[in-house]
């Protein structure tokens, strides 16, 4: 299980929303979105509408996997 944690603040909500639309499961743990999937988690940057400052600082934590892409196109977390 791959888990990506994103803090629930206004500018980050689109990240969780796009992750859910891409097939990941989005729950909450305290004030964080807990985005989980059995396989990779992929978030399309343009679909989120995030600009660079938010985009490149939106990840709070990664469990059971590692970030293999985090650029202007997408954020991708692959299972460990």
């Amino acid at each position, binding site marked *: 299980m791959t888990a990506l944690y994103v803090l629930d*603040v206004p*500018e980050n909500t689109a990240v969780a929303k796009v992750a859910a639309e891409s097939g990941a499961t989005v729950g909450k743990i305290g*004030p964080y979105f807990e985005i989980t999937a059995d396989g990779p988690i992929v978030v399309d940057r343009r679909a989120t509408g995030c*600009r660079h400052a938010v985009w490149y600082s939106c990840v*709070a*934590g990664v469990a059971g996997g*590692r*970030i293999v892409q985090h650029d202007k196109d997408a954020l991708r977390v692959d299972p460990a």
Partner: protein
Amino acid sequence: MTLEHKVRGVDHTAFPTFDPAATVRFYRDVLGFPVVHSICAAGWGPDDHPDFIHFFFDIGNDDRIAFFYYFGLEPVHTQERGDVHAGFGPEVPEFFVRSRHLAIHVDDQDDLVEYRRRVDDSAWPVEMQIQHETIESIYTHDPNGYMVEFTRAMRPVTPQEDLDANLTIDALLDVVAEPEPSFGKLLARKAELIVERAADWELARQGAEA
């Protein structure tokens, strides 16, 4: 145990200058920062620069920026990059040279625009303006080469951001205590701390509000 937090902001932050005329022009005449204090120190310093002036400008909130002007002291380095206090050779990356700065807070966009207007009418115009989802800032260098930022928040800071900052710092301390710290290790450790603490934090906060 949490230590009681009793400090009251920045009394002053101090920098040397070799050009007091330009420094006063920039801070007092261009920015409109009142001169609020000065010390004329005769024979107080060491033998090679016994006399100096220490002068202060109000930067709001009764906080102050201060300068030292040492009579008879020549600039202490000849590097092309850096400021009058610190010079940097070609081996130092540009991002590192540009990392140290003073950021002064303003309340809203009108005030940011006003300070932009003031510096743009001067010899030290805005060099960069950035805006993203959380802050908007302008940057320039003062007559001494010190980088000065004016910044406003686009929204109030939320309580969960304080939690997140504390989890980041705790994760960072854990990661730098081990060999070969990396960003990936930080995110992995922080994920563990989120799982351990985030739910309890929210419950405690809801309890405190109830």
